[in-house]
């Protein structure tokens, strides 16, 4: 049944003061950790953009301005829960256990990449914490998360499936079928709609006729809530409630997270062509990291100026890893035909063997590239 849940939209005001008493039960140490995760997302993002401009990596989908929406909502997930990425959740994966080395290897699409360089940059995955990559096709992961949540229910696994997607994806087939199936099956999942205002160049108000995005849940018969996506603790608190509901067998819900995409859709996109910079400036004043930092400083959890030291420390860590990934070994050529099926079938062995004859004739084959037995 639809219900607009009584969940605070804001817990920490933009100036960093607490708006109410109902803060999530987090220790000072845990709050500080969340801050470090926010900073890590931003530092990694900035370094990746620099690498992209230097021609070292192909493509960056920046999360600048959306860090709290990601870290806040993913914060209360257990590592046994699943996070179904919609696009910009790589920072959440880092927080949940994706090693920085694997993150950067994926950006380089090199031979250390667990996906073997098969996808373009910004398509992270981490099996250890149940984080499949998105495919690039918008919205297709939504029914996957619902099916996997049904599997959890049938197999008696204590899992909640957090399914992330953007305002653009709320127009996709996957959103419609995923929300419908989930509500009928009452599976343990949370739909996390990261409303960042833009689907590449199309503004959110051109995706739907509804004004309140939580209304979308009413059509499918599930409860919904909306939070300020630049308020990390509001995101955390709302998600904690919705995860608990799902875990207790009360079924799916929709969380609308309002934030703003400060950069272009990707490093290949120039947003000045289609949006007013004045709007961006308004949101620049609402920076989620500053807001949480002010809150921590106000509470004495973080010393004034301590953030800069944390940034420096993380930057050094990221730079060291970049050096390692720059030196990754060459991608083995057999990867061309592997993992299409569980075993390389005869026709792919024949295709590869024909190709490798050409490569050998040109003197380019290396050990391990040899023909498959037929």
């Amino acid at each position: 049944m639809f219900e607009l849940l009584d969940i605070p939209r804001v817990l920490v005001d933009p100036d960093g003061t607490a708006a109410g008493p109902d803060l999530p039960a987090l220790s000072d140490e845990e709050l500080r950790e969340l801050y470090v995760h926010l900073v890590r997302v931003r530092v990694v993002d900035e370094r990746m953009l620099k690498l992209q401009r230097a021609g070292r990596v192909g493509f960056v989908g920046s999360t600048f301005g959306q860090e709290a929406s990601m870290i806040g909502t993913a914060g209360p997930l257990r590592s046994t829960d699943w996070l179904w990425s919609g696009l910009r959740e790589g920072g959440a994966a880092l927080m949940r256990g994706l090693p920085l080395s694997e993150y950067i290897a994926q950006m380089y699409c090199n031979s250390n990449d667990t996906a073997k360089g098969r996808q373009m940059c910004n398509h992270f995955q981490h099996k250890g914490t149940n984080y499949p990559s998105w495919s690039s096709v918008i919205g297709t992961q939504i029914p996957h998360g619902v099916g996997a949540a049904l599997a959890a229910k049938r197999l008696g696994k204590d899992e909640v499936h957090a399914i992330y997607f953007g305002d653009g994806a709320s127009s996709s087939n996957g959103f419609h079928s995923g929300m419908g199936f989930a509500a009928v099956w009452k599976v343990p999942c949370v739909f996390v709609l990261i409303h960042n205002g833009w689907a590449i160049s199309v503004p959110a108000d051109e995706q739907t006729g509804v004004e309140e995005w939580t209304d979308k849940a009413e059509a499918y018969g599930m409860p919904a809530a909306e939070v300020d996506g630049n308020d990390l603790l509001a995101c955390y608190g709302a998600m904690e409630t919705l995860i608990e509901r799902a875990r207790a067998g009360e079924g799916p819900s929709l969380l609308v997270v309002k934030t703003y995409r400060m950069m272009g859709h990707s490093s290949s996109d120039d947003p000045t062509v289609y949006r007013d910079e004045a709007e961006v400036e308004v949101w620049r004043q609402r920076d989620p990291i500053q807001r949480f930092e002010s809150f921590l400083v106000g509470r004495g959890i973080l010393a004034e100026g301590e953030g800069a030291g944390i940034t420096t420390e993380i930057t050094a860590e990221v730079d060291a890893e970049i050096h390692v990934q720059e030196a990754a070994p060459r991608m083995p050529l057999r990867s061309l035909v592997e993992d299409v099926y569980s075993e390389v079938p005869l026709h792919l062995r024949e295709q590869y063997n024909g190709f490798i004859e050409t490569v050998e004739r040109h003197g380019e084959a290396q050990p391990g590239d040899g023909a498959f037995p037929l």
Partner: protein
Amino acid sequence: MANMTLIGAVNDALKTALREDPSVLVFGEDVGKKGGVFLATDGLQAEFGADRCFDTPLSEDGIIGTAIGMAMNGLKPVAEIQFQDFIFPAFDQIVSEAAKLRYRSGGQYTAPMVIRTPYGGGIRGGLYHSQSGEAYFCHTPGMKVVIPSTPYDAKGLLLAAIADPDPVLFMEPKALYRAVKGEVPEGHYTVELSTTRNVREGDDVTVVEKAADMAAEKGISVHVVDLRTLLPLDESAVVEAAKKTGRVVTVTEAPRFCGYAGEISAIVAERAIEYMEAPVVRVTGFDTPFPNTLEHHYLPDARRVIDAIEKVANF
């Protein structure tokens, strides 16, 4: 052994799988209480319960999308698409997701699942209950595409598909659902995927067809090969059969251009042209939408197949 129709064998295979493997689920539109529009899932919900065999909302995209998620998290989904003509809302999920998941994740995530769907003409179903869309899916690396033509193969291939670690599209020739009967063993057995079946041994002309046995009696000895698995195809069986007779006719109901019959023709041309005594001839549907009233002329029936056989035999 029991004497069964092809659809009876499909039903028996599903029951066998549900009985043997608790992770198997059967679902789709109208497959529960009703037992499917063709009754392929008849009695399954009564025997195994609504947790194992159930109806879904009317969304092919949702059926296949959720099946992928189930497969990624430990279940073995056997999803039904009511008619192959209705599969296209799920084309994205099949082609972009199920088929590519293993590859794009470097083998970390997989989607072992079966999509059953009735296909083909012969039931006066018109444009949207008759099509043979195998070529779309055979052009999709990562998918396996299987078509049985006998009750024995239907059960054995379906059980092999359910046990397979990769996504399988299992296309059931609906015109044969109750038109063919045969002996089917009880309990579990499999017919290995990517193997062909020689329907009839002969010396003069090789007919490669995905449908059933057919008559060709004009003093021409016809060797009939049922491909059974279209992808990955046992190409060597096609090549050997072509070499044996030097004359090949390929038969499909689908439109001709860019169809599976053309692929067989290309394989023969690349790998056995020096053995060929005549051009490879394709007998197919027209390059038109599937008709209704004139469907019996659209389908490659015995008249057209025999004409093609005579043409290559007398070349």
